[in-house]
């Protein structure tokens, strides 16, 4: 393993230059001595070349989209266009301050205004707020809006229903707004169990959170009935938009019964994941919920763009210091402009075709529990056959894929499929790449039978061998001592 940057320290080595201070005020005269730091400031002293070599060396230990296939289910690891990276670094975009006068940031506001409108239009909602900075924060914001809706109407409701296939963020967000989670099982087709839903619904039901297509990659065929059941008790339908990549130009969530939805711009709209962020999680809402959206919204009057706080008395308030992840939103704007109406639909079509192709080709080798349904943009396979016959687990299969230069699928999720492998190829991958993946998976299935020990020891040729994450918890070491 590379040394840490701290181990490269050499006293008085420098990695920066700064102009000399041209005012003659002294720090001692700025504030009293008791405010001055006494504790030594221990940061590495290294040269610029040391820094470059260090981080480039680290970078070589990562898997990333340009290196190889990244079929991580529900994460939509599509290719991120380079033009966005170049344009977003324009100093007139990167070096503007959130509290500048509006007449000095008209270009930025226009981009946001257009993006707000494009997202609303694509999803069939009245308006979208760009303020939430991640999917989970979008959920939180959407749930706050649901709560505000009920509070305004005087509804005494405190429960959100969600299926057992939901992302972990869903119940966690429900809890954060102070609602109770009611979880219902999925049916044998991998969809919402309508009977269980009816039983769970009552006057306390504030809403239903659903990922559609769901985390099994299946479009909820009974969406109309589901939304009727929820709306009949004046509950609201929340769509987790993590899987929106399946629906672009095909259906609009706002037209199929949903009232609130978050978008994951870092999934569907090709902004890079950044090794865990920054993302962006805007939310769209139906007309009567617009007044609850976070303040401010960007608006236009007499050809000028401005931050509109006019709904501040009904708004849920602010959830981010400023206007959300602007630089991420700008990338999504560029991407949408480059897709256009035809490209938009093509994205989802190809994502769906790629996923169905993989599902078809793999089902002779791996259990695909819901193979009777066509999937949308992703599907869930299982390592159960291998586990039962050879003792090889899904974890071992995932690690062996790493040896072949392929990132593992999302594993052990959704929780309702044992030994789950959630596979999402995305539309940007070619048929050759998919065929290579199929070949790798078929080889691994054979290896499970012929050489299960190899799989249990995998990965064998990644930058490090299997990492002991139990030790990372038991012997907690979260900072380097030097």
């Amino acid at each position, binding site marked *: 393993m590379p040394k840490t940057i701290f181990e490269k320290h050499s006293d008085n080595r*420098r*990695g*920066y230059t700064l102009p000399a*201070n041209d005012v*003659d005020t002294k*720090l001692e005269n*700025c504030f009293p001595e008791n*405010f*001055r730091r006494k*504790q*030594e400031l221990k*940061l*590495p*002293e290294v040269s610029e070349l040391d*820094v470059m070599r260090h*981080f480039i060396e*680290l*970078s070589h*230990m990562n*898997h*990333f989209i*340009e290196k190889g296939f990244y079929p991580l289910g529900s994460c939509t690891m599509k290719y991120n266009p380079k*033009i966005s990276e170049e344009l977003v670094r324009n*100093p*007139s*975009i990167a070096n503007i301050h*959130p*509290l500048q006068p509006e007449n000095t*940031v008209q*270009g930025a506001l226009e981009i946001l205004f257009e993006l707000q409108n494009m997202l609303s*239009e694509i999803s069939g909602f009245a308006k979208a707020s760009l303020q939430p900075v991640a999917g989970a*924060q979008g959920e939180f914001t959407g749930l706050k809006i649901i709560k505000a809706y009920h509070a305004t109407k005087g509804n005494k409701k405190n429960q959100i229903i969600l299926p057992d296939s939901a992302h*972990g963020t869903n*119940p*966690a967000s429900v809890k*954060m*707004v102070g609602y109770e989670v009611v979880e219902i099982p999925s049916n044998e087709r991998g969809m919402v169990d309508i009977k269980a839903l009816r039983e769970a619904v009552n006057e306390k039901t504030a809403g239903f959170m659903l990922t559609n297509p769901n985390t099994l990659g299946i479009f909820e*065929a009974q969406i109309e009935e589901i939304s009727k059941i929820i709306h009949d008790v004046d509950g609201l339908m929340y769509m987790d938009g993590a899987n929106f990549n399946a629906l672009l*130009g095909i*259906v609009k969530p706002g037209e199929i019964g949903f009232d609130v939805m978050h978008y994951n711009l870092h999934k569907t709209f090709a902004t890079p*994941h*950044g*090794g865990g*962020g920054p993302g962006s999680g805007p939310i769209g809402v139906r007309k009567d919920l617009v007044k609850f959206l976070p303040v401010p919204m960007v608006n236009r009057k007499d050809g000028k763009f401005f931050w509109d706080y006019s709904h501040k008395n009904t708004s849920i308030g602010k959830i*981010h210091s*400023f206007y959300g*992840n*602007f*630089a991420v939103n700008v990338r999504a704007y560029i991407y949408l402009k480059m897709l*256009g109406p*035809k490209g*938009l639909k093509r994205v989802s079509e190809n994502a769906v075709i790629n996923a169905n192709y993989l599902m078809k080709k793999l089902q002779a080798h791996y259990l695909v529990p819901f193979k009777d349904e066509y999937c949308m943009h992703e599907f869930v396979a299982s390592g159960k056959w291998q586990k039962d016959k050879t003792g090889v687990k899904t974890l071992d299969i995932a690690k062996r894929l*790493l040896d072949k230069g392929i990132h593992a699928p999302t594993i052990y999720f959704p929780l309702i499929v044992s030994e789950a492998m959630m596979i999402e190829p995305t539309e940007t991958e070619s048929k050759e790449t998919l065929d290579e993946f199929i070949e790798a998976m078929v080889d691994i299935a054979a290896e499970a039978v012929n050489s299960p020990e190899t799989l249990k020891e995998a990965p064998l040729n990644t930058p*490090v*061998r*299997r990492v*002991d994450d139990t030790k*990372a*918890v038991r012997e*907690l070491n979260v900072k380097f001592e030097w």
Partner: protein
Amino acid sequence: MPFISNTNKERQEMLAAIGVENFSQLLKNIPEKFLLQEDCCLEKQYSELEISRKYAKLAAKNISANEINAFLGGGIYDHFIPAAVDHIIQRPEFHSAYTPYQAEVSQGTLQYIYEYQTMICELTGMEISNAGLYDGATATAEAVLMAARKTKKNKAILANSLNPLYRQIVSVYTEGMDIELIDVDIEDNLQKLAETSDNDTACVVVQTPNFFGNLEDMAAIEKITHSAKKALFIAVVDPISLAVLNSPAEYKADIVVGEGQALGNHTNYGGPLFGFLATHQKLARTMPGRIVGATEDANGTRAYALTLQAREQHIRRAKATSNICSNDALCTLAATVYMSLMGPKGLQEVATQSATKAHYLATKIAELPNYKLMSNKPFFKEFTVKTPLPAKKIITKLVDYDILPGISLEQFGLEENLLLIAVTEKKSKTNLDELVAALKEV
């Protein structure tokens, strides 16, 4: 089609392999009436060249800090960023990787986070840092939630000198959790704080330098806070300031949070930002967000992995310490590269230049007729001035001088003649003198 590899021929081959004749057969679960019949949405398709041209025109309508003499702060600061920072964070190895769930092919991300955590601990003097949160405001909110969880108390005391935007977000984040927020005036003395703080107090939240730029007497506040049974002391700090100002460990803070943008990240019209959160080891299990730990691989080689994941939403679901999943990771990479390049001396130089230039400017402005400093408390790189005209008017007028003199505090519900001025090391003496001269003229 842009960014899509498969040709129509390949698409047909794949549809045939799936066993359908056309794409629409794959959509049989979707009620037909919901299917969009025509191409929906978006005006047209732009080529790379066309979008670049359109975008250049839009960008040209903005005025950036590169073109104007700006003194804007309020939590986001225009500090110098060495070129190497952007070179590293643009590498697809970092920016197009996902959250490091598969540790064996994510050691680059995991190791830098471990180094980031170490640096945040060094800056703050604390024992454990997470891998970052969305911004300083949500980090403050998460710290309040953490304190309530840990102490099982529901009263949170907030100094009224806290950034009002942070205050709003703390309120939105805590209102569903049965937490009572109490704002206490600590401007003149700490008597109110002493009276309010009691055995039901989960935490006392104080920002230093505060929203107005002034330094709070953290040592005295700490004594009052900790005289209440169990109450935790939450410090909200500017990371740049810590190079020269007391580390929060020196005044015995329990949780330290703040906005990390100033460490190597562009202002980007306010996002992405990142929040940092550091605390004592004994509070580790109540922390929100990801944490990386050092461990070993099967060969006994040093390696890194996500740790204490039992706190997180993907494992604990409704019982998680937070709903956070994606954070603003790449911004923490920028911070790690930045701190590596600057080292202790560079960071001290940045802090020193920012502070001394701010003090030079404040002195000059205070000498102008009808201008005075709002407070005589010590400050760091930002200070509030009482202006003869509404600050908004001054700001509008000074655009013609190619100057953005600061932030009007009227928009935060304060008096209209308060101007918050921030100075970083990027300002030259000439820049400062130009502001003084312009203020004199308007």
